[in-house]
């Protein structure tokens, strides 16, 4: 039998019992909707986490951290100079697999002031590589350059958030050339980083809600407290204050502690790996270089983002799995509903089936007809389910806006829809088999 004819019959059947068909589809609709909504939510969360990971340097960024040396080296630990600028030079020369090396000296809770305004922020002394490793973008001016390092220039590059807070009356102002005081020492602003934000807040801002508004609302004691902690990578980026590492060393490390010996240690040492496929090899190279500069003391370790990355992926997978399971049960219930209705429907049409058989329908023609019919129910249910899912997601966003807006991806749509059609067809198999094996004579006599 012609497939299209079967399709037509299916549509006619559904059209003849609109409400009943809708109730039948409801299981599929809800199943598909929850499946797709779940996919979208987890994808949104994953996307948010990936963005954060990327904003803080991506997987290719590796931190060389301080770690207590192993027990047998405890007594010799003083021999190691710790992480110093010497490490940086050694790595640049001796570890070709490392793309960029960025040392950093940090000062916490430093007074940043301009006329009568004072902020308390962290200040970092950095090299030019800081820009690329930290995935910063310059909005105006320039980054600290090698000449600044060599000349120990008192120049500073600030995050957009710092500019906003120092010049609160004029949010658009780009304060290039202005002088701010860092612990009282004047530094001239030569550059400003662009405003960093997640896609979500970007969308929100474009919709007219600025981060500043949001922050003000929160300060007023708004209930929705999600934003801008100091652990938020976006907040940190927007409140960066960076000066040449040499300036930080000479202005604050030697002068401040004039009586103590100058502290040449760097607080952070970040690397960027040029080829991720050589991840282990690169770390091996770095380890051997640093072992030499640290005189054999293993007082350093690596902090990679791989674990972070893995934990994102595995948590997404786990959520997706449990979500699919629940949505799958709902789809299964929907399928059972279809089977039930199809069984009722063929009982109603036994005579019709008998007639069709009498005029020459083969068993497989009847079989196809019933399966197509239930497949059509699955198909339409799937389409309605997709529509319901988008509605459901909008509703979720309205009820509880989070950082991680749900994302509907094409594969998720295809999987959910495919499941609906598949369940539709599967649940028609038993009724179809039953209908096709009816004895035509009995069927003609029925009712």
């Amino acid at each position, binding site marked *: 039998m012609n497939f299209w004819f079967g399709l037509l019959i299916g549509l006619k059947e559904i059209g003849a019992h609109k409400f009943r068909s809708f109730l039948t589809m409801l299981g599929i609709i809800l199943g598909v909707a929850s499946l797709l909504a779940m996919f979208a939510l987890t994808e949104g969360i994953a996307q948010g986490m990936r963005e954060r990971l990327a904003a803080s340097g991506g997987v290719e960024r590796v931190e060389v951290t301080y770690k207590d040396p192993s027990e047998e080296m405890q007594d010799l630990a003083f021999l190691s100079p710790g992480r110093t600028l010497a490490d940086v030079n050694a790595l640049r020369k001796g570890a070709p697999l490392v793309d960029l090396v960025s040392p950093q000296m940090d000062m916490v809770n430093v007074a940043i002031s301009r006329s009568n305004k004072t902020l308390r922020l962290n200040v970092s002394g950095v090299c030019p590589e800081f820009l690329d490793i930290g995935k910063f973008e310059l909005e105006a001016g320039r980054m600290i350059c090698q000449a600044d390092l060599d000349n120990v220039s008192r120049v500073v590059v600030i995050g957009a958030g710092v500019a906003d807070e120092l010049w609160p009356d004029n949010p658009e102002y780009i304060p290039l050339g202005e002088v701010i005081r860092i612990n009282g020492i004047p530094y001239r602003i030569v550059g400003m980083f662009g405003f960093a934000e997640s896609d979500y807040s970007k969308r929100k801002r474009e919709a007219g809600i600025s981060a500043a508004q949001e922050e003000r609302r929160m300060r007023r004691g708004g209930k929705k407290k999600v934003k801008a902690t100091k652990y938020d990578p976006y907040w940190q980026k927007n409140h960066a204050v960076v000066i040449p590492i040499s300036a930080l060393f000479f202005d604050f490390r030697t002068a401040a502690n004039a009586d103590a010996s100058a502290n040449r240690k760097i607080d952070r040492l970040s690397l960027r790996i040029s080829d991720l496929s050589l991840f282990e090899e690169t770390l091996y190279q770095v380890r051997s270089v640093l072992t030499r500069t640290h005189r054999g003391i293993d007082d350093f370790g690596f902090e990679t983002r791989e674990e972070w990355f893995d934990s994102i992926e595995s948590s997404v997978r786990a959520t997706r799995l449990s979500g699919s399971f629940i949505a799958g049960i709902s789809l299964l219930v929907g399928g059972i509903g279809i089977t039930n209705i199809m069984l009722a429907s063929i009982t109603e049409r036994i005579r019709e089936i008998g007639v069709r058989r009498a005029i020459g329908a083969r068993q497989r023609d009847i079989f196809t007809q019933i399966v197509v019919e239930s497949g059509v129910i699955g198909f339409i249910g799937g389409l309605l389910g997709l529509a319901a899912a988008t509605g459901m997601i909008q509703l979720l966003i309205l009820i509880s806006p989070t950082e991680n807006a749900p994302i509907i991806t094409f594969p998720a749509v295809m999987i959910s829809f495919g499941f609906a059609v598949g369940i539709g067809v599967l649940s028609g198999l038993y009724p179809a088999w039953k209908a096709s094996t009816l004895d*035509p004579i009995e069927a003609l006599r029925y009712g």
Partner: protein
Amino acid sequence: MPLVELYDIRKTYRVGDQEIAALDGVTLSIEAGEFLAIIGPSGSGKSTLMHLLGCLDTPTSGRLVIDGVDISRASNDALSAMRNSKIGFVFQSFNLLPKFDVLRNVELPMVYAGVAAKVRRERAMEAIERVGLMNRLHNTPLQLSGGQCQRVAIARAIVNNPKIVFADEPTGNLDSHTGEAILTLFRELAASGRTIVIVTHDNTIAARLPRRIEMRDGRIRLGVEAQVSNTAPLAPIAKEGA
């Protein structure tokens, strides 16, 4: 060679541990172009015989050949194919599909025969014209009278140009006037060379057909078969049947 040949056909049903012989050794042949009646009281086996002739069922034993095809042991699909291409059915209760209009009902056998949509429509129209229902093409069976429904059923039975048409009590659900009109239609079809078998318990109908086969207790009652030649003129038509 006869169109239909039955030799010692038996059909038994098991009911519990009892075997009931619905047909108990039926031997019969039907020539192409014959117009005959199978009569008998209920339980005589005439329905079973018609089911076998109509390829809806297979005999328990014996040989049944229709148009050269031995269907005694044919597969389910082969039976379907026979019903589709060589056999037309007309039922007492019309058995039209209520959701389809006249045209689609008549097209249905061709759908299963895999005829292209365009040809299907043309041939369906021809058959509908033959039974005189061109003005009812897009009515559904529920909007038609009983006589009109039976005409649609006849159009459906002949649309695939079958070798033989079986009618099971075709006038049973109709008033006598309409029934007469339907019989006239069958007569016209028979006159144009079609093989038609009418199963009925109504002797007044059977009496007017060229050949009668009377069934009793699963056998053909011998000696009562009216031997009328195919070439003989048809029995007179009742006037009101026009």
